[in-house]
């Protein structure tokens, strides 16, 4: 008799029936069958995750710093050219800087060019590095896992929130630059790098496309940071490692002697976003960049998954 009851399927089913009957009677607020998993309920974690990222002071400070960069650049250009002179004698400085005085829209391109090498990826590195390691450090990871968030689902939620942050950070720079540019400088038709002039409306669309290309450029470091985040129980260590990897990659990318490895470094094709400003759009470098970012996402995303789904959570 008890042998039959040992069969897990049957015991399980009976236990569940009993449980539902019991709670159904005792607690009217929870109707029978309310505990089913539905796609809608699965999404709660993603919304909660994104909300949590943007409610952290740290995130808001990072976005604030990013928003301040275009304002600083715009004010500096305005002050320097106030007496009718040109910026930096037409030479150095970030790309497009010399055109800013003629058209405020170029401040968007200048600001993205100025923040992409370091500010933007550093902010992404902080958020990605802290994503799982920070939860482990504060102990909340174990409560999310016993909730049960599910390790794969939690990892996907973390990846999603980091990618949303990449987009948000880029848009903050772009919008702050657009607002500053519109306030300080004239707006008008846009002369592209290829010499063609397009309307301001199309210039805005191109600016949006540039922001999109910049946001996609950050996917690689987001995946890398997420993987680093699965390796340690210290949020600070994961952030520092990710930002350290960024600096290393940027330095290695400067040495001509290391040309062999450079095409595989995630920042290598970053400045390709300028090719959006040609007529017709120059796709080669842009696609190289997107492919490289996708490769990083695939490799480090898989590594993060392999690590996180098998790791002992002792924190």
């Amino acid at each position: 008799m008890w042998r039959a009851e040992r069969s897990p399927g049957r015991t399980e089913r009976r236990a569940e029936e009993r449980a539902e009957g019991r709670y159904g009677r005792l607690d009217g607020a929870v109707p029978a069958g309310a505990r089913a998993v539905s796609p809608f309920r699965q999404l709660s974690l993603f919304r909660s995750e994104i909300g949590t990222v943007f409610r952290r002071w740290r995130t808001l400070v990072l976005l604030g710093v990013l928003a301040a960069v275009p304002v600083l650049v715009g004010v500096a250009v305005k002050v320097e050219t106030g007496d009718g002179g040109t910026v930096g004698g037409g030479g150095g400085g970030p790309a497009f800087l010399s055109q800013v005085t003629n058209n405020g829209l170029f401040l968007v391109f200048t600001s993205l060019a100025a923040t992409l090498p370091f500010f933007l990826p550093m902010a992404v590195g902080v958020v990605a590095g802290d994503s799982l390691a920070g939860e482990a450090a504060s102990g909340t990871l174990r409560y999310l896992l016993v909730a049960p968030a599910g390790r794969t689902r939690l990892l996907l939620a973390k990846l999603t929130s980091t990618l949303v942050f990449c987009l948000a950070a880029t848009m903050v720079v772009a919008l702050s630059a657009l607002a500053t540019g519109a306030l300080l400088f004239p707006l008008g038709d846009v002369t592209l790098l290829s010499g063609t002039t397009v309307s301001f409306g199309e210039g805005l669309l191109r600016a949006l496309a540039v922001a999109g290309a910049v946001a996609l450029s950050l996917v690689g470091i987001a995946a890398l940071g997420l993987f680093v985040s699965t390796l340690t129980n210290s949020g600070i260590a994961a952030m520092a490692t990710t930002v350290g990897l960024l600096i290393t990659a940027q330095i290695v990318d400067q040495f001509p002697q290391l040309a062999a490895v450079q095409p595989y470094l995630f920042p290598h094709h970053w400045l390709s976003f300028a090719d959006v400003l040609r007529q017709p759009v120059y796709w080669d470098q842009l696609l190289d960049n997107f492919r490289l970012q996708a490769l990083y996402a695939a490799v480090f995303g898989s590594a993060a998954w392999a690590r996180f789904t098998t790791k002992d959570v002792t924190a």
Partner: protein
Amino acid sequence: MEEPAAAPAPAAHVPRDGAALETRGLTKRYRGGQLAVDRLDLRVPRGSVFGFLGPNGSGKTTTIRMAMGLIEPTSGTVEVLGAPMPRSARRVLPRVGALIEGPALYGFLSGRDNLTRFDAADPTADPRTRAARVGAALDRVGLVAAAGKKARAYSLGMKQRLGLAAALLQPRELLVLDEPTNGLDPQGMREIRTLVRELAADGTTVFLSSHLLDEIEQVCTHAAVMAQGRLLTQGTVAELAGLAASARGRLAVTTPDTADAVRVLKEQGVTDLVAAFDRVTGELPDRDAPDLADLNAALVGAGVRVRAFGRERASLEDAFVALTGEGFDVAG
């Protein structure tokens, strides 16, 4: 499986068969080679309030983490509510509430938002009832007034309550509470005990790890004792207390006249007399033990003023010390 659960089941609808948590040969060796849990065979009957005892570092928390699917066992199996872990985690854990190694909260979120976040992580939780369930859980642990405060401003006791509230967001079949009264004031400890009794009366199995022996003795029906990764014993609390070296208990007399009391009791055949402050304890003889009433009469007759008189019940603490040794040292 065939043995009937010895739990004094609090309510009729509690299933008397099956285990809420069962381990077979459960072993965990950490990467450093340290053996944290060694071939553990633990069985928590459904409907019981199960006390899990052991000195610090004895492997209690590692066992709990393996049961909750946070740590992969090196060998052996662990089943929770009849399903193997960690494989069935997504199916089983929505029916389990857990407080593991103290509460962990998002300091920058309010108490209410913390609960909302943990509830959102449960894929079986209904978003439509979320606010109501969060409110009910806050109410149950007495945190409604502080629900809007940022969790970083909470005291340890309030954090502990919020952690408990997170475990009570849903009706649970099993509650795993690791040191639930840690950091609470005596009033809070009482409330927790009352809460555990209420939950048990509703049919929830409660698995309670603690080093507070009287706490276990007050609320638990069953208990297990671990030391150095091994299970020393498990059974009902009464059985365990019965294991104490002197199962019958010592005679204890509270009196201001200890010297006289010792003399009189010695004459009556009581051995191993110990006088401390205003208390005299002694071992009653195994054979021809005098009637306790006669002993008392003899004391009073000899002019000894007796404040209290009786036989001490063998406590869980006696059993615990008998099993783990006097030294309550942290295992290396």
